[in-house]
């Protein structure tokens, strides 16, 4: 072989061409063959024919060759690309190794932003994007009327209605529900030392089948066990089984003593099933028992309703179906007047929407907030990289002069930002993991599904997406700026600060202004949410939660007749209250069967005497929420009362008495004093002896409906919660109160002694949760903006050292130099604030529905934001300003 000739260099000037190569190779072969054959004496034509014959199917050969060639070409390109990339990455690592401070700051900024994003994404993913943790969960619908101000009490159905609905509807595979009025710790587990409280929920027999939950051990309920009279059984949750029974593998078949009744454990549920997480955020259920529909038949509305739609049935079809059935449903088939009570009240919505629908807006707001954080972090890093790039201007100019293309330079810078954002993403992921683990254990936050929070594949994918996004965002801007620089200018220039001059600084100023503007948006949003939260805390609840506490009390008031039972109950309650009020520190004590901001219940709608037949327009007056209380409860709870409280002397032998709230009084007797009037409940006449303030029943923020109080001496309570008011911290009393209760009733379980404030905290916890997160993000945004301002100003001071030196040599005072730098800073800040205020006004409108009693134009929030940002700008401008004024003219002039 001779050496490669010159022409060959240009043969493939427009890139490799494997097909042409093959053709060349084969045609050379043919020619060589023809030459040989001619030399042996053949005629040229015969030689050509013979050569082609020997080569066979040339077309096929060419195809094979071309395809192999292309494969090789592809592989080669890929290899080149990788080796370039590896080279870039190696170089990036080397430069960051030299500049550790810069790398550390960038990675920390990125890790915070990316960590926040992953954590919030996981929350959003869990609550909004991921399906509920049930098989084919899209088929599950929650059936209830639209939300009202009486909560579950208006969203439940009677046993008869349930059965009729189930029988008549055609769109469901099956319908189920659970008893809605369970209070925590409603059972006590005996026979193992002190009685231990447990929370049990009665569910309709097919509950687990409809949800598609398979027991981890044993079985769920059989049809026999669902009917009354059979041997009582229970299914345990995984958590309870582990906690209370040390994960006893032989638990199935064992009998537990619950409330003095033997109940056989038939199964244990899988760890993944969390009733509270889906249906009742924050509630920890320990065991499930079958709901006996026959037993509950005369108890009115007690069960919630949900169903599993047949495959392919839409929610709209389900609604049509429900509208067809509901006018014909009885609350109780024995009472014809209950026909049609549920008309328009059976509205199926996807279970997922019921569980998380209310949170959608908050979550989207949160998601946007972390998105803004990411933007700020990206802009900030762009800025840092630009400053760094300016310092490296020479390096890039030299590379350019040596032949590096613009694309190659941009790629180098992108590789650097890839290294940074990759490291940031990894650290961020760790931060997110910690945050998520912490969040998942926030049992006190009443958010659904929080316990199932985890980093999954989707979250990892999101991490990668974010890392790529930031890489491009903050790598491309400096890359393009530098790639486009004028080489000669840079090389001609001398000195470290020289290079990209004014134009460069203007880009950085724009970046800082946008950073400040974004921080504005976050600060205003956080301010508005904070104000809303404070307003919520300020809401007059109608009772005084501080210094009050409650504990669940057990007693036995069973007696052959209602009268005897009421008398027995009266004696027991008096004894308990007398004993408890005797404890030092207890100022007042009383008992109720339901506490505010928790489960509640309704009875029939009473009618004012003499107004029988008056019809209340729907929505004006839902049936009142009912409390059966002892004398003293109103005072212990701190509810304001006009009129008189119940007395022990109000018995079944004396006149029936009630207390009603102000809303009910207003509706029953508009413009009249309700005290002394009589309410009729069927044939029962109840004299109103007092009017109490409305108390926030369902939620702290929601509207209030009508409420009615009956004395325990005249009505049967469904449980007993002792409420005490004290001058001491409630926790200090827990021991002595439990001891007192034990003395009176040795069976009293060790129930939790809860400050009433915890009920309020629970009710406001979602708002607190979101507010704190947004505030934390705003703080982060502010910090990043401050860093950005500081970076730009201190860079510009460094660049002007010489100029400042000259001016000071010519007589400028240090004060003047400092003033100028600060004014410069404030100008940047002011521009950012201006742009930010406009952007905030837009974003505030978007979160308006999340605010409580706060206008989206709330002046305080905006003023606070402006003040905060000006202070931050001042501080971050002051440090470089001091440095500028400290410049020694001689040194500055000599340095260049």
């Amino acid at each position, binding site marked *: 072989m*001779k050496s490669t000739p010159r022409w060959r260099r240009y043969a493939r000037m427009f890139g490799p061409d494997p097909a042409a190569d093959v053709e060349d190779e084969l045609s050379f*072969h043919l020619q060589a063959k023809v030459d040989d054959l001619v030399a042996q004496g053949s005629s040229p034509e015969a030689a050509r024919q013979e050569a082609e014959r020997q080569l066979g199917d040339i077309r096929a050969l060419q195809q094979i*060759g071309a395809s*192999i060639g292309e494969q090789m070409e592809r592989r080669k390109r890929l290899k080149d690309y990788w080796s370039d990339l590896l080279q870039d990455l190696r170089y990036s690592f080397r430069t960051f190794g030299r500049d550790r401070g810069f790398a550390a700051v960038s990675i920390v900024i990125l890790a915070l932003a990316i960590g926040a994003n992953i954590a919030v994404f996981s929350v959003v993913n869990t609550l909004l994007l991921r399906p509920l943790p049930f098989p084919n969960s899209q088929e599950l619908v929650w059936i209830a009327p639209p939300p009202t101000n009486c909560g579950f009490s208006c969203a439940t159905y009677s046993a008869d209605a349930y059965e009729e609905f189930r029988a008549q509807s055609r769109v469901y595979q099956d319908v189920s529900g659970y008893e809605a009025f369970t209070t925590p710790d409603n059972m006590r587990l005996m026979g193992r030392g002190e009685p231990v409280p447990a929370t049990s929920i009665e569910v309709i027999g097919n509950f687990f089948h409809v949800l598609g939950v398979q027991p981890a051990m044993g079985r769920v309920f059989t049809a026999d066990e669902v009917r009354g009279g059979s041997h009582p059984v229970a299914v345990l949750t995984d958590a309870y089984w582990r906690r209370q029974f040390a994960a006893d593998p032989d638990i199935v078949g064992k009998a537990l003593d619950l409330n003095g009744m033997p109940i056989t454990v038939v199964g244990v549920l899988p760890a993944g099933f969390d009733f509270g997480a889906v249906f009742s955020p924050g509630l920890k259920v320990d065991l499930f028992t079958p709901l006996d529909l026959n037993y509950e038949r005369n108890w009115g509305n007690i069960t919630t309703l949900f169903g599993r739609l047949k495959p392919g049935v839409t929610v709209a079809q389900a609604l049509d179906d429900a509208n067809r059935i509901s006018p014909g449903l009885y609350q109780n088939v024995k009472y014809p007047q209950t026909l049609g009570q549920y008309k328009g009240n059976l509205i199926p919505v996807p279970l997922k929407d019921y569980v998380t629908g209310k949170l959608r807006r908050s979550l989207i707001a949160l998601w946007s907030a972390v998105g803004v954080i990411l933007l700020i972090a990206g802009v900030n890093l762009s800025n840092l990289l630009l400053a760094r790039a300016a310092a490296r201007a020479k390096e890039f100019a030299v590379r350019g002069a040596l032949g590096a293309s613009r694309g190659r330079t941009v790629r180098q810078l992108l590789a650097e930002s890839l290294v940074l954002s990759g490291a940031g993403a990894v650290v961020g992921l760790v931060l997110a993991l910690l945050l998520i683990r912490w969040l998942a254990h926030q049992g006190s936050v009443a958010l659904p599904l929080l316990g199932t929070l985890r980093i999954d594949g989707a979250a990892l994918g999101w991490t990668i997406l974010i890392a790529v996004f930031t890489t491009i965002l903050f790598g491309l801007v400096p890359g393009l700026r530098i790639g486009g620089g004028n080489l000669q200018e840079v090389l001609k220039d001398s000195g470290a600060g020289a290079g990209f001059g004014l134009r460069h600084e203007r880009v950085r100023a724009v970046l800082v202004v946008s950073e400040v503007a974004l921080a504005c948006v976050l600060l205003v949003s956080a301010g508005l949410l904070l104000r809303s939260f404070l307003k919520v805390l300020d809401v007059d609840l109608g009772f005084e939660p501080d210094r009050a506490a409650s504990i669940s009390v057990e007693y036995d008031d069973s007696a052959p007749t209602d009268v005897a039972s009421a008398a027995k109950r009266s004696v027991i309650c008096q004894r308990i209250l007398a004993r408890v009020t005797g404890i030092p520190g207890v100022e007042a004590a009383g008992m109720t069967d339901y506490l505010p901001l928790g489960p509640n219940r309704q009875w029939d709608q009473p009618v004012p005497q003499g107004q029988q037949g008056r019809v209340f327009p729907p929505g004006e007056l839902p049936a009142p929420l009912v409390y059966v209380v002892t004398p003293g409860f109103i005072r212990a709870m701190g509810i304001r009362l006009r009129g008189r409280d119940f007395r022990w002397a109000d018995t079944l032998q004396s006149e029936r008495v009630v207390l009603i709230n102000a809303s009910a009084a207003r509706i029953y007797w508009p413009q009249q004093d309700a005290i002394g009037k009589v309410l009729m409940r069927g044939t029962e006449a109840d004299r109103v002896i007092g009017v109490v303030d409305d108390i926030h029943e369902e939620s702290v923020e929601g509207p209030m409906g009508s409420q009615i109080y009956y004395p325990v001496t005249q009505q049967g309570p469904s449980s007993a919660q002792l409420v005490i008011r004290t001058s001491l911290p409630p926790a200090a009393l827990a021991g002595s109160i439990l001891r007192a209760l034990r003395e009176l009733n040795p069976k009293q379980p060790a129930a939790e002694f809860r400050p009433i404030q915890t009920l309020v905290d629970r009710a406001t916890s979602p708002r607190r949760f979101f507010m704190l997160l947004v505030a934390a993000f705003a703080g982060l945004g502010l910090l990043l903006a401050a860093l950005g301002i500081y970076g730009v100003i201190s860079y510009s001071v460094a660049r002007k050292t010489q100029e400042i030196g000259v001016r000071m040599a010519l007589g400028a005072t240090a004060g003047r130099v400092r003033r100028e730098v600060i004014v410069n800073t404030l100008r940047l800040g002011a521009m950012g604030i201006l742009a930010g205020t406009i952007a905030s006004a837009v974003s505030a409108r978007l979160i308006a529905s999340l605010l409580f009693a706060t206008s989206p134009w709330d002046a305080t929030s905006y003023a606070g934001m402006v003040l905060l940002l000006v202070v931050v700008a001042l501080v971050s401008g002051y440090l470089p300003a001091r440095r500028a004024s400290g410049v020694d003219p001689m040194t500055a002039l000599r340095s260049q």
Partner: protein
Amino acid sequence: MDTAKLEFLRGTLDVLILKALVWGPLHGYAITNLIRRQSDDALLVEEGTLYPALWRLEKKGLLDGEWGLSENNRKAKFYRLTAEGRRQLRHEVRTWEAYAAAVAKVLGATEAPLPEEIG
């Protein structure tokens, strides 16, 4: 041996190509000639299979293709043995020899083997 074309055993062509290139880079046509002359015209490489074999070997990294000028100044693609190709050749020659020896032993046998002992 007469000049009747011997059929190539599977895989034989590859090892012959590798061997042909031991003495220096060659183009495809020269490879066929070399194999034919080395085998005293016993082995005729079919050209339709030669080129795909060359490309395959090149793709595997056993050969390096390079353009150059032939003896009579035409542009031709020369193949050169890579280090990897040399290693492969050594390995295949060893396999081939062991195989050939085994076959020869069987074919050259003059009496039936002793009956195997039953263990």
